[in-house]
């Protein structure tokens, strides 16, 4: 089939990202939006827009019935779920299918198999893919103690339906166990509508290395190399890169093969990601699979010269993966920094209106964003605002571009994690590539730097002039030739 009109069941930067590829392909795009998002960027990036309900996600972006209704009303013939919200919800994939629409994603059965993290672990073991040691949560206190004894502390309590770092709690001793389980259950229930959790051994200082996989409906499955995502806060990635500084060609080939086996074990179709933990001894363990486009997909696109959204749409239309995808050779290196509306030290969310906004530009820099001046950042949604992606012929060049890009990025009015991202990419350890998932926690606290006088002066001008920066200090500018300070216009 040929897709003509695509409904994008998402918001923010990823909805904008998907709309761009679809439009380039001559496909009409339909945005959906909640009441809180009527003025959002993604709504205006699409050809049409359908209002789907209230600000709370359960009333809008998480409502299967409203999304299907929006697709019918707008006569869309396909649905792209993006990431988050319903992207890994098998019931949504089934509902899209049942409505006679084309689902841009893997079959519902593959989503269900990988979406239940416990079942996924069992399948991977059967397929010969190594998994992190783990256990179900026993119902009795004795059972719990025995499981903890067997796996050893520290442990992770993880949501079976989890993803995106939600519904995860670390436990370092028996005292915290019950509370951690309760908290993970509540968070999981709230984020995924399923309170099932399981236990996993917390590996010490592993790297997070994942493989992009892609499969068509004709039985071809390829991997598109790795992304290293070791820099995480609250089990959520904030900086990603490809290639991983930890992999050599042999290890890459072995992990890539395991990723393909994992995909084939669930008859995967479309874009997906197989996540591994890589231990310091170079052993690797299947962590989980993400049955969707990944937040950090742009770094893969940048080094391979691909458009993964375009490829997702082509595969959904039933086309074969291009033959050359078996022999792709990455060029250079790429990094991604996730810009979040959150405190750079406590990681607590921030909200507000974007008052002044300017994205970095220039060679090797790509910004995927879903905000602009005037955007209201609400607490109802994921705090991701934008992704800054840089590439270069070498990792060093990509890093230097990222350092520049983060310094140029102006976001005023909403607190962001930009200063933390800068500390990461400006650190020597990051440049050395010696990373693991606990690294961010060890990053030294920010050095106190005095506030520059110019910043104080600017704040003073804004205050003394009642809000506008007007004229208080625009001194003798009326006739530039009469200035007393030696400055003259250049002709």
């Amino acid at each position: 089939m040929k897709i003509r009109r695509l409904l994008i069941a998402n918001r923010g930067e990823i909805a904008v990202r998907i709309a761009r590829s679809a439009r380039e392909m001559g496909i009409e795009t339909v945005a959906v939006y909640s009441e809180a998002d009527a003025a959002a960027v993604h709504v205006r990036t699409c050809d049409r827009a359908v209002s789907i309900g209230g600000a709370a996600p359960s009333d809008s972006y998480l409502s299967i019935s409203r999304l299907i209704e929006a697709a019918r009303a707008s006569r869309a013939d396909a649905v792209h779920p993006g990431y988050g919200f319903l992207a890994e919800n098998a019931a949504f994939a089934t509902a899209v299918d049942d409505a006679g629409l084309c689902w841009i994603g893997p079959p519902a059965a593959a989503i269900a198999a990988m979406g239940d993290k416990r079942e996924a672990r069992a399948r991977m073991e059967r397929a010969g893919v190594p998994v992190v040691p783990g256990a179900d949560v026993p119902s009795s206190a004795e059972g719990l103690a025995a499981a903890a004894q067997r796996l050893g502390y520290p442990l992770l309590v993880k949501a079976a339906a989890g993803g995106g770092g939600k519904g995860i709690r670390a436990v370092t001793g028996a005292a915290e166990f019950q509370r951690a389980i309760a908290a993970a259950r509540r968070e999981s229930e709230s984020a995924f509508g399923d309170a099932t959790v399981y236990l996993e051994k917390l590996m010490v200082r592993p790297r997070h290395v994942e493989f992009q996989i892609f499969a068509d409906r004709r039985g071809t499955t390829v991997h598109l190399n790795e992304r290293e995502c070791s820099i995480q806060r609250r089990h959520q990635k904030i900086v990603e890169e490809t290639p991983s500084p930890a992999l050599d060609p042999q290890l890459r080939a072995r992990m890539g093969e395991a990723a393909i086996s994992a995909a084939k074990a669930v008859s995967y179709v479309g874009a997906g990601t197989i996540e591994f933990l890589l231990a310091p001894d170079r052993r690797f363990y299947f962590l989980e699979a993400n049955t969707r486009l990944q937040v950090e997909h742009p770094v893969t696109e940048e080094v391979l010269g691909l458009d993964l959204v375009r490829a997702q749409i082509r595969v959904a239309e039933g086309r074969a993966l291009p033959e050359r995808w078996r022999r792709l050779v990455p060029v250079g290196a790429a990094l991604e920094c996730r810009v979040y509306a959150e405190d750079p030290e406590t990681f607590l969310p921030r909200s507000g209106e974007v008052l002044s906004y300017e994205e970095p530009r220039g060679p090797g820099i790509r910004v995927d964003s879903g905000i602009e001046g005037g955007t209201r950042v609400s607490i109802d949604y994921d705090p991701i605002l934008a992704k800054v992606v840089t590439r270069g012929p070498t990792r060093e060049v990509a890093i230097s571009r990222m350092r520049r890009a983060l310094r140029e990025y102006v976001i005023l009015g909403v607190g962001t994690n930009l200063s933390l991202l800068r500390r990461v990419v400006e650190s020597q350890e990051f440049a050395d590539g010696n990373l693991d998932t606990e690294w961010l926690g060890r990053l030294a606290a920010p050095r106190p730097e005095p506030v520059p006088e110019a910043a104080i002066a600017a704040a003073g001008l804004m205050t003394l002039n009642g809000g506008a920066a007007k004229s208080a200090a625009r001194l003798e500018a009326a006739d530039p030739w009469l200035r007393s300070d030696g400055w003259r216009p250049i002709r």
Partner: protein
Amino acid sequence: MRREARLEGPDGEIVVGRADGGITIDGRRLALDAVEAGGELRGLRVEGRMIPVRAARSGDLIHVFCDGRTFQFRLVSSGARRRAAAAKFDADLLAPMPGRVRRLLVREGQSVARGETLLILEAMKMEHEIRSPRAGRIVRLPVGEGALVDAGMPLVELA
């Protein structure tokens, strides 16, 4: 228009004032030249050096981007009022983020132990536990379950 204002910045309080050809910072005169484009402040020229600056104001908050970093200042008059209003609340019991009160785990009049979880805030699908900074008795719970709170709002009054 004000001649002088007190600002609370990252390094403490500062008094800024009007001055011919510049501004005073804690009484010291700084000669400068504002560069604007599109009605917005874009730079300050100080002693011949052009420093890129952006600034925006919303209510009492002034946000400044200067040389790759972002700073926030608050006009003190109202900040002081807010602090006075919040004075009887422990700093640990002010909302650390905007969010929604997901669960209240205590009742007014109840005694609590140090470290006990009092309520759970939720924002952006993340949970944040508010724990008691000390042993005491709950005097007042100004917000109910499901309430939306702003950062800095008192959540629990503890005696």
